[in-house]
């Protein structure tokens, strides 16, 4: 049987202080993965089932020598949102953040935003939920109190929101709602602010730039302070918008459609999609990003490789492969103390899983610091509706690898973390002095033994 390779995906890339109309001195990168693993659809699970899995750090005022590095996690299909803490003794705990009770439906989170909603200096969590949106406020006692969002966000849309971009500094959330448009919501420190939007008519964008389903978002400050830039990824192209953040309605204007016109050997044509797209800010460089290039299976067994994307002045973008001996499943980025970028890469070669480190030293220069055999087996939860075999999804679908600097901020130590809803995996990296190779320590912490996918439960 022929299957339609309808795996279309679009990436939203916001460069600049989005802030829903206000200038921002500080923003953060947020987003979800796009994973168009061709036309692979198994047991109805669909290829997009897990793309909204999320893992983000949560900022809290530091108390003493606290290095708990809390993370907030959302694994689509599981019961909700969890906070993962490192305890003083080095162990980890996963604490569910319980949604407000409702008799209407079963909670099904599809989007996370981390921001200080109530302006108390502590990060809170905004949860977009197919049932009912909610906000989890940091109670200052180590826990969270879930509440309805009405007090903080007026009319926050309930729907299948593929994109959620949050601006920690401005208490603003940009939500793509049901593939119809973007809406901007801003917390007013306890005062509801009417939504502005939709600020982008997605249907017209789709026609203009041959784009389709939204799946990935990046959000970062502009490197030159020259305003906002919004890039929607289509098939081998980006629609670039400039945004006037001072306008009340956050005016967006289509600036150009970027295409890839030149190809580096052995590539001959654009990827259909750039998965796991992440901004890679490097001082003195044009806007850059990192991604895994993908095409539908019918275009041949194209190996999944790391790609560096560059957006120079003009209507083009360039793609260069980071040559690795293995296929890439996912990757995470972290800024190094020396201004370089450190990329943690998870992949597979013939002998099994591989963890690798790449240091990006300049706009078009990088070096592989090393590769180490590792253990990595991302799981999906049981889904009784599909029998004992459950839904099967490709191994690259929805896998996030979060890069972070060591909590002390003074040593060349970095962490790359993944959580599949069962096990927390941490790769701790200590960079060596001079030519000394990095030291990588892998850790697997079992937080749950068995879980059930509520999406598919009868």
């Amino acid at each position, binding site marked *: 049987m022929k299957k339609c390779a309808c795996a279309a995906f679009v990436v939203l890339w916001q460069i600049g202080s989005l802030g829903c109309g206000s200038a921002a001195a500080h923003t953060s990168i947020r987003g979800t993965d796009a994973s168009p693993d061709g036309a692979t659809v198994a047991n109805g699970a669909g290829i997009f089932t897990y793309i909204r899995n999320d893992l983000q750090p949560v900022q809290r005022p530091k108390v003493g020598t606290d290095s708990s590095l809390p993370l907030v996690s959302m694994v689509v299909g599981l019961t909700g949102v969890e906070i993962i803490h490192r305890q003083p003794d080095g162990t980890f705990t996963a604490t569910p953040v319980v949604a407000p009770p409702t008799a209407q439906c079963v909670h099904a989170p599809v989007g996370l935003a981390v921001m200080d909603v109530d302006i108390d200096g502590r990060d809170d969590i905004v949860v977009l939920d197919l049932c009912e949106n909610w906000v989890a406020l940091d109670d200052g006692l180590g826990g969270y109190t879930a509440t309805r969002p009405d007090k903080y966000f007026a009319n926050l849309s309930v729907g299948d929101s593929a994109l959620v971009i949050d601006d920690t500094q401005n208490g603003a959330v940009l939500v793509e709602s049901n593939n119809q448009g973007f809406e901007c919501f801003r917390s007013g420190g306890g005062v509801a602010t009417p939504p502005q939007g939709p600020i982008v008519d997605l249907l017209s964008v789709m026609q203009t730039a041959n784009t389709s389903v939204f799946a990935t978002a990046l959000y970062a400050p502009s490197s030159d302070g020259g305003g906002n830039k919004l890039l929607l990824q289509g098939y081998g192209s980006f629609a670039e918008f400039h945004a006037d953040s001072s306008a009340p309605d956050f005016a967006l204007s289509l600036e150009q459609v970027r295409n890839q016109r030149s190809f580096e050997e052995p590539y001959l044509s654009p*990827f259909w999609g750039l998965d796991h797209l992440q901004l890679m800010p490097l001082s003195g460089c044009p806007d850059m990003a990192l991604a895994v290039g993908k095409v539908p299976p019918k275009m041949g067994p194209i190996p999944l490789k790391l790609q560096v994307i560059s957006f120079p002045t003009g209507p083009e973008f360039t793609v260069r492969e980071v040559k690795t001996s293995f296929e890439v499943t996912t990757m995470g980025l972290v800024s190094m103390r020396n201004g370089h970028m450190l990329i943690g890469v998870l992949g597979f070669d013939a002998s099994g899983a591989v963890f690798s480190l790449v240091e990006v030293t300049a706009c078009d220069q990088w070096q592989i610091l090393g590769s180490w055999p590792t253990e990595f087996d991302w799981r999906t939860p049981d889904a009784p509706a599909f029998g004992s075999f459950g839904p099967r999804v490709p191994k690259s679908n929805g896998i996030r690898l979060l890069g972070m600097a060591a909590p002390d901020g003074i040593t060349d130590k970095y962490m790359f973390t993944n959580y599949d809803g069962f096990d927390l995996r941490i790769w701790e990296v200590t960079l060596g002095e001079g030519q000394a190779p990095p030291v990588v320590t892998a850790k697997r912490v079992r937080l749950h033994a068995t879980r059930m996918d509520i999406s598919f439960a009868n």
Partner: protein
Amino acid sequence: MRLVWIFLSLTSAFCFLSMSMVSGCGDEPGMVTDGGTASDAIPDDASVMVRTDGFTGWIGGVCIVNADCLDSPAQRDFAFTCADETYCLEGLCHVACVSQCVMVRSDVNPCISPRICTQLPGSGGMAVCKITPVPCTTAATCPLYKPALADGGLGEWTCENGICQYPGYVNPTQ
């Protein structure tokens, strides 16, 4: 016998026309698979319609080289409106629709072997999976796909006597 063949052909044609919507057509009774025992099943003056993942067309008529198939039963019975190619494979004439392909990497062939992705001259970059030797005027018109050499490296196509040639590569049809 003729009636049976017509029935099979009509059934298969239905499968072809609806293959994007209907599953299981490949399991129709009487269907012949590419590279199977077709020579035993097909009379010399007849052809059968065949559809597999890599082939949609008619098979019929004995041959030695591709040119023998220009007036073959397969050519006579071929009833699809599509870009097609006629060739001799394993002693039998084949006429089949070619499928479109897109080359993403020069070292990865998106077509089902032994077909290779070949750009159509003057088509603005359109390419199809072909099994026949690729005619050329210069090497620049030869396929973008470069099969791996014995040492794992890649070679270069050359245009010799109007036909594209590649080190170590033998055209599957002549």
